[in-house]
């Protein structure tokens, strides 16, 4: 096999390896088989063209032809001549497939099933990438460029996945790319001549060359850094590490699509809320006049990095759901309801239900119930396109009864598990201040809950990240601006800090779109709130996010709307309704609020000043300013340098160090004046040299100042005073460098200015502009500094590595090799 064909083979395989990340999008592996066929045929066409010695464009045409053939074969419309020659009908069919793919992309959640349109798009895309890679690597012999189309494939799963993509496919793609580079270089060496090993043996087979050792090591280090660095960066850990850690255990092999409840709920929430486009997710029908939020997940694992949801565990949900009404619950009334759910577009391993579900219908046995978190989950199924029904009981708590609740025993599991809180000074102080003087748990919780009011300066903004770490909490409590993530987490954190069990719940508010009893829940209805545990009552929900901003916000009697002027103010005691059902006006109708027109509740995008859509001009402006500042840096540096060199305090003229010309006897070199004059001359000369560089005049390092000045006068056509000035600068520098006594009491600045002016007039306009805006002297100096720095670092690393190798290498133990 000749080298070029080998490179072509490597290009094809590298393309396939780079296509592997697509496996996270598809449910089946049909796409891969089709892609293999496409790539093989494309490469075959390319190889054939090369065998016939076709030029680069000929190879391209051949490969495109091969791609067309593959697509016709794999996706026939039935109109083809002899089954392979495409006709107009084929083209129309392809068009239909593409539009079908477009619909699929819009409507389907991942992982997608085998839809013809998407398969066609995938085969077309991967085939095109194969063509690009082949052209780059084989025809143009620029395999490094082939990385770009490969990266294009990788960008697809990155764009589709909510949080992050598994790292393994990336490694596969990177390895493919590196392999392509290696093959190409081996081929290059082959074409150069025969390779011989150190002892004169002819190398025919592939064998690592010592010349390429550095490259290999750099490649390995590069891939490792690309994988490890994101893990090390705080804030990105929620993605890669979590998936890395749990991906292998939960789901089946080859199905790395993030099932099994490992989805980061915060990231999901943030991602959906930030989406510009609102998508319908769930349709739910219930006769409940006042349902609470539809709930699916819980985050109760609190560390200094914030709340995290953990992997649920439990038993089959079908017959195991507890009934909360069991036992003695004075002060709690229950509403029994029934709801049927149709999942439109939500792909998750957690089942959204009203709290507390008592019986599930049309739910298979793969769904399990975690009694600790009260969530229904599955390790094998997802909610995608699922229809199910359930019975539930909704508890209504009487605030007076809650007030009488006993404190949670200090040794109970719940107390231990749900009150652990990292020590964050700012939060602890705030809690102590707010709960001062409150005697029972409910009052303490209410004090904290009531604190998050618009009156206290809290506002709603989607700008903040979904970060619930200790620092972010302190930040939030100071800035008082955030969205449900911050409010729910902050309240839970503070309640925990007050010694009462609390956790964060995730779900949907019931939004604004409803026809009769059917509510349509969209991506913008996603919400997070706080649940607090009261002994004898169980988990009681509190929603701290200001209700003004939440469409479909529900404020029950035990957690009234703190911003409503007529009720629920702290200290007012229990709400008038003794049953504590629902406070009047608690269900906030967003359509009354002019700020929330258009039904966009959570996006905050329409709120003045905080909007996502109105934000980008500011980013653009900031980016523009940063770019301008960066661009201005060289010229600013140049101006600073010039000022430092030119504007210098005058030399005191009382120094009478004798000129050397008439007295050959040693004159003491030195004294502050002489040193100063020397520095002045150096500065003036450096400025002159930089000016020459800026105006693109030759600067020869082998030239003496005298020669340089003479050449300058000659080449730049300087005359009279300017020529004298240039020579004076040369002479001053010469004396400063080589003579015992430098040129004293002569101000070099006028000469320097004159020469600069003369050179500027002489230079072409373009050079002049460049000298002013991007002075080459500064850029050159920075570049050389960077090079020096890099060289130093590499050298140091090399020394360390050698030392390490010397210590670790087993060869040092071999006898008789020390001398070699």
């Amino acid at each position, binding site marked *: 096999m000749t080298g070029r064909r080998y490179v072509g083979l490597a290009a094809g395989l590298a393309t396939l390896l780079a296509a592997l990340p697509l496996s996270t999008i598809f449910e089946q592996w049909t796409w891969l088989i089709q892609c293999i066929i496409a790539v093989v045929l494309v490469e075959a066409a390319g190889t054939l063209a090369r065998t016939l010695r076709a030029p680069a464009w000929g190879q391209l045409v051949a490969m495109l032809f091969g791609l067309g053939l593959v697509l016709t074969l794999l996706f026939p419309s039935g109109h083809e001549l002899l089954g392979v020659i495409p006709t107009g009908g084929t083209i129309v069919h392809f068009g239909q497939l593409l539009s079908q793919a477009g619909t699929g992309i819009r409507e389907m959640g991942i992982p997608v099933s085998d839809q013809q349109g998407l398969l066609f798009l995938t085969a077309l895309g991967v085939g095109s990438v194969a063509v690009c890679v082949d052209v780059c690597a084989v025809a143009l012999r620029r395999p490094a460029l082939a990385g770009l189309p490969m990266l294009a494939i990788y960008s697809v799963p990155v764009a589709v996945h909510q949080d992050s993509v598994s790292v393994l496919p990336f490694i596969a793609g990177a390895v493919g790319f590196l392999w392509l580079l290696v093959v190409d270089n081996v081929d290059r060496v082959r074409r150069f001549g025969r390779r011989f090993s150190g002892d004169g043996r002819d190398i025919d087979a592939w064998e690592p060359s010592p010349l390429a050792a550095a490259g290999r090591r750099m490649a390995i280090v590069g891939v490792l850094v690309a994988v490890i660095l994101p893990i090390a960066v705080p804030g990105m850990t929620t993605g890669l590490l979590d998936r890395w850690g749990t991906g292998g255990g939960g789901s089946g092999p080859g199905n790395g699509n993030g099932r099994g409840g490992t989805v980061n709920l915060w990231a999901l929430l943030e991602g959906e809320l930030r989406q510009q486009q609102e998508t319908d997710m769930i349709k739910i029908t219930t006769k409940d006049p006042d349902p609470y939020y539809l709930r699916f997940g819980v985050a109760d694992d609190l560390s200094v990095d914030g709340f995290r949801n953990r992997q649920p565990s439990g038993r089959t949900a079908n017959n195991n759901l507890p009934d909360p009404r069991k036992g003695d619950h004075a002060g709690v009334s229950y509403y029994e309801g029934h709801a049927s759910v149709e999942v439109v577009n939500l792909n998750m391993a957690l089942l959204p239900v009203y709290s507390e579900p008592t019986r599930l219908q049309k739910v298979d046995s793969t769904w399990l119930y975690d009694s600790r978190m009260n969530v229904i989950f599955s390790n094998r199924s997802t909610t995608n396109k699922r229809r199910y029904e359930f019975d539930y009981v909704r508890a209504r708590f009487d605030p007076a009864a809650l007030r009488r609740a006993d404190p949670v025993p200090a040794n109970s599991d719940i107390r231990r598990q749900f009150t652990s809180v990292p020590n964050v000074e700012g939060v602890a102080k705030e809690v102590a201040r707010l709960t001062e003087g409150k005697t029972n748990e409910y009052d303490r919780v209410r004090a904290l809950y009531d604190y998050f009011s618009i009156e206290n300066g809290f506002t709603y903004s989607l700008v903040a990240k979904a970060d619930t770490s200790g620092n972010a909490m302190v930040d939030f409590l100071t800035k008082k601006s955030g969205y449900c993530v911050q409010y729910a987490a902050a309240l839970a954190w503070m309640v925990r800090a007050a010694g009462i069990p609390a956790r964060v719940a995730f779900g949907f508010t019931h939004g604004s779109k409803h026809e009769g009893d059917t509510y349509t829940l969209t991506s913008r209805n996603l919400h997070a709130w706080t649940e607090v545990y009261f002994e004898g009552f169980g988990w009681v929900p509190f929603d701290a996010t200001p209700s003004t901003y939440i469409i479909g916000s529900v404020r029950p009697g035990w957690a009234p709307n703190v911003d409503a002027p007529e009720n629920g103010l702290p200290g007012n005691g229990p709400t008038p309704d003794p049953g504590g059902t629902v406070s009047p006006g608690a269900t906030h109708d967003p359509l009354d609020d002019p700020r929330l027109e258009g039904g966009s509740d959570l996006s905050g995008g329409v709120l003045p000043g905080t909007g996502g859509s109105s934000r980008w001009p500011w980013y653009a402006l900031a980016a523009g300013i940063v770019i301008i500042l960066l661009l201005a840096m060289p010229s600013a540096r140049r101006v600073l340098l010039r000022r430092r060199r030119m504007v210098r305090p005058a030399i005191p003229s009382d120094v009478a160090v004798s000129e050397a010309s008439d*007295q050959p006897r040693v004159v003491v070199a030195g004294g502050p004046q002489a040193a100063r004059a020397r520095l002045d001359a150096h500065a003036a000369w450096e400025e002159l040299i930089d000016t020459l560089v800026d105006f693109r005049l030759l600067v020869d390092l082998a030239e*003496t100042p005298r020669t340089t000045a003479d050449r300058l006068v000659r080449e730049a056509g300087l005359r009279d005073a300017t020529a004298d000035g240039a020579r004076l600068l040369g002479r001053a520098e010469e004396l400063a460098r*080589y003579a015992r006594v430098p040129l004293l009491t002569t101000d070099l600045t006028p000469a320097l200015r004159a020469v600069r002016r003369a050179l500027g007039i002489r230079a072409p306009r373009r050079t002049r502009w460049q000298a002013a805006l991007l002075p080459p002297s500064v850029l050159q100096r920075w570049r050389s500094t960077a090079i020096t720095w890099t060289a130093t670092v590499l050298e140091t690393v090399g020394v360390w590595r050698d030392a390490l190798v010397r210590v670790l290498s087993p060869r040092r133990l071999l006898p008789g090799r020390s001398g070699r």
Partner: protein
Amino acid sequence: MTTQRTLGELGEPMSNSEFRAVTDSIVANIEQVIEGKTATVRLALAVLLAEGHLLIEDVPGVGKTKLAKALARSIDCSVRRIQFTPDLLPSDVTGVSVYNQETHDFEFKPGAVFANLVVGDEINRASPKTQSALLECMEERQVTVDGTTYELQVPFMVIATQNPIEMEGTYPLPEAQRDRFTARIAMGYPDAGAELAMLDVHGGEDPLYALQPVSDAATVRNLIATVRDVHVADTVKQYAVNLVNATREAPDLRLGASPRATLHLLRTARTVAALDGRDYVLPDDLQALAVPVLAHRIIPTAEAQLSRRTTDAILADLVHRLPLPTDRQQRSPYDTRPSHPEPTDYRRR
């Protein structure tokens, strides 16, 4: 490696103006005989003041011997001339012990080198044996005959001429001998005007005979003392070392310049600077002297010879390419002396 004379023996250094006056008068005096060769004449004088020896190499008839003799005559000191012939013996150069019948003892008869200025004409015509007689006296300024060492006078200078064209019956100077010459200069043809003037001047009687000495050995000793006082900055020293090192590392050269060459280079540069009226040496001086001082000591590789690159061209190329040492990298790594104090307030870069 050079004479062990002290400054006291050399005499007192002169002031700049005195120095200029004396040297200018010597140059003017020689120029009465050699027209239009000021640079060559000054270089010859520089070699004398640098306590070196001069090799004048050129085609016949351009005035090599005349320059040597004019220089010798301009200074009122002892001058000897040796015509190097194939049958010349070493004892003719150094001197010989002859038996004195009156004293019944061997008596040393000094040879031609016992003078301030020794003009060796057509030096490559003598056999290597005879040429070797000059080795000791040129470098060590002494002569050892029959186990007795005789010191030579100060100043002592050998001015040798040789003919590069004629190969028949000549013995090329060995490297050791060439290395002892401070500089090799070529006379070159005079320009048209100078040649016309020469016809007038030399038409009648030889002006050499009318030449009066304008200086003497004592004055020359003073001049040498003055030259020794010329300041050489660290950077310039570094440049000299770099330059010589470059000849050793140049791929075109089989043999680079010796450390003696470095010494000669710097010493001649001092003189040239002094002749120029400066009390400090410039890299320009070294650049100008690179070819005269170094070219005859280096040997190009066979490839360079085949591609007809002369040593002069190779050296000029080196000089053109070697960067000047700047303040910041001037110090040799072996130099532990503190550098001159410098306020560091705005030298940051």
